[in-house]
C-alpha cells in the first residue's frame, strides 16, 4: 500500500529542503520526494493525502517525556502518553526513568517497550537510570540497559550530587555510546525551594531556587564531559547562565548538547502571582532575562533541541497548596504551537524550529530518524501552521490536565501523523 502526501510544503531540516513537494510512502518506508505532480500516478493502490496548505515534516521527536508507567498509572500510562504524543505531532518519545520502580534494569525497560508495542502508536525510547535505584550511589548496568533498548541514561528528577559518580557515568556510558542526560541542579542550593529566586519570590514569600543551583551543575557536568570525553546532554535549560556555559563549552569543542522546554521559552515567573500550581516546575520558570537568553540560545544553535518535559500529575498532586504541589506540567499537546510562536516572533525560521523537534533530537540519542530520506521509516507529521485554536485541556489525550496554557489562543495544529507509514493520528473535523 502506497501513500502520496500531495501539495504540501516539505520541511526537512537534515537536507535543508524547504519547498513545495510531494512525498511518496511505500509500505513503512519513505519512497521518494519530488516537485508537485512528479511522483506516482493516480491509481487505486495509491492513497492520496491532501496536504494543501500544510507543512510536511519529519515526525517530531521528544527527548523528555514522563510516562509514569510503571507505578503511577493514574497520572499517565504508556498508552495515554503515546496518544497525547501522537496528537501533538510526535512519532517518537524518550521516557524518563523515574518511574516506580525506576528504569534501572532491563526488566523495566522490557515492560515499557512491551506496553509501547501494545499501544502501537509512537516509538517509545526508554531512558535508563544513571545510578541503581536513581540513588546516586552506584552505576546502573548500562550494558544490560543498552541491550534492552535504552537510548540514554539520566537520573532525571533527582540530580546526581556526587561528582565522582557523574564522572564515572560519563566514562562508562561511552562504552555503550549512550549520552548522559544531566538534570542539572545542586540540591543543597535548591533546598526546599518551590520557584525561581528573584523579585517575584520575594513578593510572594515562596521559598526560592536560585539560578546558581543550575549553573554550578551545568558547569560541573561540562567540565566532566571535557575531562572524560563523554557526551553530556543538559536537560531543560532554564537559566541565562546555563545557556552561556553551554555556549562556551561548545566553542571549546566539548561534547555537550542542550534542550529547552516550551514553558521555559514562553513563560516568566511573573505568571506565578496567582499561585497556580500548574506553573510549579523543576527547574523553575525564571525571569524575563532568562527567557530571552533561552530564546537567543535556540536562535544561535546553543540549544539544540526543544523537549517537553511532559510531567503528568493528577489533581491529588496539584489541587493543593503551592508548597505541597508536585513539580511538573504536561506539554506534549502544546509543544508544537508554542514552538511556532518563536517562528511568528521571527526568532526561528520554520526549518530551524522543525530541526529542534526532529533531526537534532535524533542526533542526540543516536537514532536514524527525524529526516525525510528515501529508505528511512515513514515517520511524517502534517501541520496546519495557520490554524488557530483555543487550548482546552479537557480535550487532551493525556490522562492528566496539569497545563497552565488552558484557554490560550495558539496557532499551528497537528493534522495527520504517520509512523512507519501508518496513520496514528488524524485531526477530526478539518473542513476544506
Amino acid at each position, binding site marked *: 500500500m502506497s501513500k502520496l502526501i500531495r501539495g504540501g510544503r516539505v520541511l526537512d531540516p537534515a537536507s535543508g529542503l524547504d519547498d513545495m513537494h510531494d512525498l511518496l510512502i511505500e509500505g513503512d518506508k519513505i519512497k521518494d520526494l519530488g516537485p508537485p505532480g512528479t511522483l506516482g500516478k493516480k491509481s487505486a493502490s495509491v492513497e492520496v493525502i491532501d496536504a494543501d496548505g500544510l507543512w510536511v515534516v519529519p515526525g517530531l521527536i521528544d527527548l523528555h517525556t514522563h510516562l509514569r508507567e510503571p507505578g503511577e498509572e493514574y497520572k499517565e500510562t504508556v498508552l495515554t502518553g503515546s496518544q497525547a504524543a501522537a496528537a501533538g505531532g510526535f512519532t517518537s518519545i524518550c521516557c524518563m526513568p523515574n518511574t516506580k520502580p525506576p528504569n534501572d534494569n532491563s526488566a523495566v525497560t522490557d515492560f515499557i517497550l512491551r506496553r509501547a508495542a501494545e499501544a502501537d502508536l509512537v516509538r517509545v525510547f526508554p531512558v535508563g537510570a544513571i545510578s541503581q535505584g536513581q540513588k546516586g550511589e552506584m552505576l546502573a548496568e548500562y550494558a544490560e540497559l543498552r541491550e534492552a533498548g535504552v537510548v540514554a541514561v539520566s537520573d532525571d528528577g533527582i540530580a546526581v550530587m556526587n561528582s565522582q559518580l557523574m564522572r564515572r557515568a560519563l566514562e562508562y556510558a561511552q562504552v555503550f555510546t549512550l549520552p548522559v542526560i544531566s538534570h542539572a541542579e545542586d540540591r543543597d542550593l535548591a533546598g526546599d525551594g518551590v520557584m525561581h529566586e528573584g523579585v517575584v*519570590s520575594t513578593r510572594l*514569600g*515562596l521559598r526560592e531556587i536560585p539560578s546558581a543551583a543550575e549553573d554550578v551543575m551545568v558547569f560541573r557536568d561540562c567540565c566532566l564531559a571535557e575531562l572524560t570525553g563523554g557526551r553530556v546532554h543538559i536537560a531543560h535549560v532554564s537559566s541565562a547562565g546555563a545557556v552561556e556555559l553551554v555556549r562556551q563549552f561548545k566553542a571549546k569543542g566539548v561534547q555537550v548538547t542542550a534542550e529547552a522546554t516550551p514553558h521555559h521559552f514562553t513563560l516568566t515567573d511573573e505568571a506565578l502571582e496567582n499561585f497556580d500550581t500548574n506553573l510549579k516546575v523543576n527547574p523553575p520558570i525564571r525571569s524575563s532575562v532568562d527567557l530571552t537568553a533561552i530564546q537567543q540560545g535556540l536562535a544561535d544553535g546553543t540549544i539544540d533541541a526543544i523537549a517537553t518535559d511532559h510531567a503528568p500529575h493528577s489533581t491529588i498532586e496539584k489541587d493543593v*497548596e503551592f*508548597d505541597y504541589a508536585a513539580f511538573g506540567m504536561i506539554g506534549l499537546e502544546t509543544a508544537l504551537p508554542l514552538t511556532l510562536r518563536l517562528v511568528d516572533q521571527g526568532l526561528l525560521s520554520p526549518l530551524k524550529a522543525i530541526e529542534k523537534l526532529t533531526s537534532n533530537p535524533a542526533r542526540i540519542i543516536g537514532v536514524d530518524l527525524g529526516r525525510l530520506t528515501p529508505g528511512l521509516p515513514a515517520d511524517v507529521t502534517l501541520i496546519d501552521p495557520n490554524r488557530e485554536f483555543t487550548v482546552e485541556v479537557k480535550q487532551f489525550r493525556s490522562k492528566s490536565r496539569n497545563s497552565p496554557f488552558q484557554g490560550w489562543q495558539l496557532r499551528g495544529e497537528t493534522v495527520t501523523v504517520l509512523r512507519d507509514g501508518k496513520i496514528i493520528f488524524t485531526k477530526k473535523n478539518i473542513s476544506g
Partner: protein
Amino acid sequence: MQFRKKDLLGIKQLEPEEINLILETAETFKEISTRPIKKVPTLRGRTVVHLFYEPSTRTRTSFEIAAKRLSADTFNISASTSSIVKGETLLDTARNLEAMNPDVIVLRHSAAGAPHLLARHVQASVINAGDGMHEHPTQALLDLLTIKEKKETISGQTIAIIGDIAHSRVARSNIWALTKMGARVLVAGPTTMIPHDLDKLGVEVFYRPEDVIPEADVIMMLRIQLERQGQMLLPSLREYACIFGLNEEKLSQAKPDVLIMHPGPINRGVEISPAVADGPYSVILDQVNNGVAVRMALLYLLIGGEKDE
C-alpha cells in the same frame, strides 16, 4: 465609599482608599471595646469560622474577640484537633465547611497562597490571618492604625523594619501597606535574611540597625525564629542579639519621639531587649489593642454592610 472585595487576601490587592476606609472604620469601632458591655448586634446571625493550620495565640484570640463583640457566631478549627490530622486536604476541608454556610473563613496557614486557593473554591469571604512567608494583612493594618494614632499621619513617616525580612509575612504586608500609604521604608538585617531584589519593592535596604535607627520615626522589630540557627542563616542567637537586636544603647541614637513596634511574640533578649520592649517608646500593647478594632472593621466591611450583589 463601599468595600467591594469578597476577600482580604493581602495588602497587595488593596487600594490606598480601601486601606483608609478600613482604618477609619476601625477607629469608630475602638470605642466599643471601652464600654462596660463590649458587644453590638451588628453581625448577629453571621457565622465566622477560624481555620488555623498554625499555632497562634494573639491573632486567633483577637479575631475571636472581634467577631464576638459584633455578635457573630464563631467556630474554631485547629489543625491538631480536626480531620486535618487525618490527612484531609485544605480543599476538602473547605468544601465541607462551605456546606455549612459560613459567612467568613479566617485562615492561618504555613503555605503561601493557601488563602488564595481557598478563596477560589468557597463563597464565604476569606480573611488571610497569615500565609507562610507571604502576607499577614491584618497585622499590617493594625500597625498602620497604631502609627496613624500616634503620629497622626502615615504619609511622610520614615519606618525602619529590622530583622529577618526574608521569612517575615509581617514585613511583606507592611512593605506593601507603608509604601502604598506614602511612608518611606528602610529595612535592615543580616544579608542572609534579606531576600533577592528587595529594593525593587520600593524600600531602601541596609544591613546594620545603626544605619536606619537615627532616621526612623517608627522602628518595627521582627521576630527571629529560633530554628533559623540550624539553617546556616546566622551563626548564633548571641551574635544576632549583639549586632541586630535592639537594646537601649542602639536606641540612644533614635529620635526622641520614636515608636518601637513588634508584631509579637517577642523573644526577649534576642531581637529586642526587655528594657526596650517594656520602655517608654514601646507601643507593642497598643498594637494588640488595635488588632481587635481592625479585625472588627474588616468583618463589618466584608459581611456587615449592605452590598449590591
